[in-house]
């Protein structure tokens, strides 16, 4: 299961990250690392990108990158 599969309001823990993507690395710097609990927010118009809440901040993440984060509810 990946971050892209979470429903609005659902929480999950990041278990694994495919780091072969420059944008994913930037998201990791912003706090999206393994072991962190994230909460899915509302998606933008058209369902992409997603708003993800992580340790007090909101991040904007495109589905393409969200699929690289494996999560466990």
């Amino acid at each position, binding site marked *: 299961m990946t971050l892209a599969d979470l429903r609005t309001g659902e929480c999950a823990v990041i278990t694994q*990250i495919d*780091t072969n*993507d*420059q*944008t994913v*690395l*930037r*998201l*990791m*710097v*912003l*706090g999206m*690392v*393994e*072991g*962190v609990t994230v909460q899915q927010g*509302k*998606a*933008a*118009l*058209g*369902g*992409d*990108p997603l*708003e993800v809440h992580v*340790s*007090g*901040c*909101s*991040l*904007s*993440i*495109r589905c*393409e*990158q969200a699929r690289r984060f494996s999560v466990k509810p």
Partner: protein
Amino acid sequence: MAGRQQTHIPISSITTLPKLAGTVALVGPPNSGKSTLFNQLTGLRQKTANYPGVTVEKKAGRLRADKVLLEAIDLPGIYSLSPDSIDEQITLDVLLGRRADTPRPDSLLAVLDVTRIQQGMYLLRQLLDLNIPLLVALTMTDAGQRRGLRIDCEALSERLGGVPIIPVVATTGENLEQLRIALGAIFDTVESKREHSWPALRDAAQAVLNKAENSKQIDLSEIERALVDQQSILATELQQQIGESAVRELILQRRKLFDSAPALAQEARYGHAWAGQQLQGLIDEHQGLSHIGHKIIAFIQQPVPAMLLFFVVMFLVFQAVFAWATPLMDGIDTAISSLGLWVQTLLPPGLINSLIVDGIIAGVGSVLIFLPQIMILFLFIIVLEDSGYLARSAFLMDRAMRALGMSGQSVIPLVASFACAVPAIMSTRVIATPRERLATILATPFITCSARLPIYALLIGAFVPATRYVGFSLQGMVLFGLYLLGIVGAGVTALIVNKLLSKGERSGFAMSLPDFRLPNFRTVTMQLLDRVRVFLRRAGRVIFAVTVIVWALAYFPRSEAIDTTGLSGVDIEELENQQAANQLENSFLGRAGKFVEPAFKPLGWDWKVSAAVIAGFPAREIMVAVLGTIYAVGDDADEHTLAQRLTETTWPDGRLVFNLPMVVGLLVFYALCLQCASTIAVMRRETNGWRWPIIAWVYMTGLGYFSALLIFQLFS
């Protein structure tokens, strides 16, 4: 750009003559309240300049810290020491002492947002490892309190080896005095031993340094950054400095430390684990009070309400541009006309009189009148930005913008170009994908910038009736329509660029979304005043110079005065007006205008309009100034406003020059044409060559010309 030099010291402190103790740099993530705090601490004792070679603003100023003064600089916001843009690169270079123009700061003031403390701690770890005396200002504590968030600053400070942590509210200045006291003692607390947060990284860097050739000139921190950010500018430069054996050691150590995983990912894991450990047990977060404000904010953050709100607000702004600004503009208008009349009676008629009244007052004045409207527009943009709405619309619009070949991040430059395309094009640097960035750069000049507003307002005010439909002014609606035209032009252009350029590169988009908040009065006012200053400076320099030149071209060569002896008063006036018109037609400007007139006659423009449009190519608002001067020189009745003069202009055969198809054509020409030398210059710099600015100029000018031609020919 020349900076404003304001370094006077307040009277109160002159008596004690505090001495300059050193420099302090404000560092922190974007939106953490850095600029607000900087303004609070330095007051008006600040100057703005650019870092040489790049157009990134450098703000510096003196601040009073208890008993000493500190020279403070505000660095561009960063999330980490791995730079993603030119702005962030500058911050890194200054922090490592790698910029010749800015010495390495003696101390750091880390500005961290308490509501995003995890992100802040991530940066703080890297800053602490730089081994520069450091102080933390924890901002947004009011917002934190409202959320029910509390942090034990003392315990955290202790965990960090005694780094002072001062909670403040940057907007109100709460607890600022304590911050000043701590800043005054910033150089006294250096000696307390701080351990490196990542010993393995430091050891690896030390091993590399030991093998480096000129190890004296290299700081351990520089090698640490080079170890983590392999592809960075810093790493490349450093590898050329340290010599072959050290480079080999660098590669070896990097492999030992990170194995095959990306080093940046490893650092992110390590850094966030570290930050979590430091904060463990020190954060007390209970459910904050949920009041009606939060519910409203949560509602308008949703996609559909947010979009609707945007268009409603924009529509209202254009209503306001006419409704609110009119009384103010009338006031300025009256003041300028009476000034002109007064000067006219004061000076003897002749050269100087005409230069001042017809040239300078009429020319510069006709642009100054639009200051109130431009201020309303700027206010709107500043509020959008300051409330966090702009960042949120970048998120909301990402999908739609991608369909046009741009990115959500393009929204920020596009909205910024409602003010001016130049800073907008510079802010496209945040767009990581070159193709999306190019599409955005070519789209921005279509967006109606504030320099287009004077000509729109002049023509709409003169030719669109001030009637109302269901309470909305028709003039406001026409203006809104012209803005929409600009938006459509931008969208279509981006689409074309996207079709012409090959695809293939993957695009990324990751950003931190700030929460909505009520804009702060002080922040908004400061920014608004800044914009007004820029506008006035432009009017005072460029437009002033051009009006004087245009006036001279319109005034010379002089023809013979007509003998008026023996004629009645009415005849004299008639004759004088005719003479003024003849004079103008035979002036240098008149001859040049007549020369180009054939090219613009199919658009319905007479030589005066043609000349003004041509003069407007370096900067569009010049056109209004030139019209002001031309019509003032060619008209003896000085109590007429420019708008009145325009409505009365006729062709030699008596037909009105400004008929509806011509006016609409002229407006559309203005909406589409690229008449701005500064935009062309910044395009050249940002795209590294003349190719794109030339393409953009030909494309936009052609589009404007043929649209105006089509409209005039079809409808007249």
